[in-house]
């Protein structure tokens, strides 16, 4: 936070710079040393343990089975997130719609999927084949069928995982998008309506574009969360990153080493996502559209006016 006056003051204050003995923070030094010691001890304990073979970690890091699992994890994350965003936007718009049926449907959806554990939902989708032996796409309450398939083929583990994770995440995304929509002032929707724009156009052209910058930071968190939650799919026999690691350690019993391998990949992915999120936020923030930017601009103009 440099003030515009600072450059003028600097040369003078240089002349008689304050020479003082800084405060000694003995407490900090002691605390830091203690923690360092403990960490070192822990490190040695792990490193010296003969049962833990570090050498296996790099060996398995690029194992084809694990790389395939990693690919599945990434696919699952991206597809489930896409499903979630699609559902979430629809649910948020429904929730704010004047139509009571749409509102209630969306409310129930959010209530149900946010209120039950993802793991339960995953297992549920996986077992759906038992109660609905066939899936049929057609006109409700008629015999007209456009497409049908046995559920066990249709809901393969990966599909079940995408449905389970996507439907669950959609409920959270809906709430985030709803907050984004609400953040766009009623004044602008009134103005758009007064210009003769229809409700759908107001939503698409005025509200949603301004909700995006608001929604991106929390959505980035959800993306990172999804990458980790996708590990739950291993429970329903999806061979994603954790699943592939499990397959290997179930035979060689190198559980810890392989979990370290999986963790390294998870960390690499979440780190990449965090960096991506940072740049996306910067990119979206460029437009002066966001309220923060508006406030920033005002402060800037005020400061200029003050000098």
């Amino acid at each position, binding site marked *: 936070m440099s003030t515009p006056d600072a450059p003028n003051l600097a040369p003078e204050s240089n002349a008689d710079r304050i020479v003082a003995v800084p405060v000694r923070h003995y407490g900090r030094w002691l605390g830091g040393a203690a923690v360092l010691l403990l960490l070192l001890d822990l490190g040695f304990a792990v490193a010296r343990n003969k049962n833990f073979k570090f050498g296996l970690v790099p060996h398995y890091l690029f194992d084809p089975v694990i790389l395939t699992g990693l690919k599945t994890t990434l696919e699952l994350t991206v597809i489930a997130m896409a499903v979630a965003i699609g559902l979430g936007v629809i649910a948020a718009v429904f929730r704010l719609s004047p139509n009571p049926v749409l509102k209630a449907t969306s409310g129930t959806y959010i209530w149900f999927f946010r209120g039950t554990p993802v793991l339960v939902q995953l297992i549920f989708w996986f077992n759906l084949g038992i109660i609905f032996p066939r899936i049929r796409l057609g006109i409700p309450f008629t015999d007209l069928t456009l497409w049908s398939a046995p559920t066990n083929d249709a809901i393969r583990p990966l599909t079940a995982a995408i449905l389970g994770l996507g439907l669950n995440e959609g409920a959270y995304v809906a709430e985030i998008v709803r907050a984004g929509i609400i953040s766009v*002032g009623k*004044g*602008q929707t*009134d*103005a*758009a*309506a*007064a*210009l*003769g*724009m*229809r*409700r759908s*156009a107001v939503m698409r*052209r*005025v509200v949603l*574009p*301004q909700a995006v910058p608001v929604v991106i930071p929390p959505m980035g968190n959800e993306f990172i969360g999804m990458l980790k939650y996708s590990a739950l799919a291993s429970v329903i026999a999806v061979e994603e990153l954790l699943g592939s690691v499990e397959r290997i350690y179930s035979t060689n019993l190198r559980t810890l080493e392989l979990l370290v391998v999986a963790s390294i990949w998870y960390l690499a992915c979440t780190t990449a996502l965090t960096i991506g999120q940072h740049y996306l936020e910067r990119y979206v923030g460029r*437009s*002066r*559209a966001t*309220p923060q*930017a*508006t406030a920033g*601009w*005002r402060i800037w103009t005020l400061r200029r006016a003050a000098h």
Partner: protein
Amino acid sequence: MTTATGRTPVVRAHRVRKNFGRLEVLRGVDLDVFPGEVVVIIGRSGSGKSTFLRCINHLEKIDGGLLYVNGQLIGYREKADRIYELREREVAEKRAEIGMVFQQFNLFSHMTVMRNLTEAPMRVRRLPKAQAVERAYRLLDRVGLRDKAAAYPAQLSGGQQQRVAIARALAMEPSLMLFDEPTSALDPELVGDVLEVMKGLAADGMTMVVVTHEVGFAREVGDRVIVMDEGVIIEEGVPEQVLSAPKNPTTREFLARVLTPTGSVGATSDVLPEYTVKGDPGT
């Protein structure tokens, strides 16, 4: 729907009522606004001025009475003695003929000035881009902001934003303009530019309903002044009469507050000394 003079009023309000829950905000408002007329509405805070304006373009649904714009019921359709509610699309089509300017400008903050001006003409009126842009430049010239076409609203002063908002409403070529305290959110030195644009509009024959406490504007431009209080019109007449010799004691009290420098509402205007109330407002 025509009066004795043979002219169709642009706005005809007949016993218009509006409630918010149990609060009666409009309790039977009657008003005719004729083509080319500038009607100024004044009145205390909470008297229902904004609500009445918002009813005229159906941003609020009325609970009783009849409201016509250009001879057609607003929000409803009459057919064979029955009244049908209009579809959303039909309501939107009618709104497009009525321009509205808000106290808080309400520009689309993610769009440049140019896109603010071309969005509705292109989307609602299906105007080709070239024509919409040409129209936008013409209107920006009119409000003196041609060089701001590429700016975002946040980069403009309040007065500039409000002039863009007026241009945006005019881009739909409305037959009626509604202004809800267009200068109340502005710094005193910026009020003049906005009023100047509005005066120009009035001179060009635009039909306008203006809620404002700018008494100077009301006197100079207004054809009629309406005083609202507690959801009804308590006084109405030519500006000179209403502003200088009000009959209603509530009007007198209100004007005294607006016009004295100690009053909070109009105290900022630099035209103040010119417009002190003649006679004793206290009696």
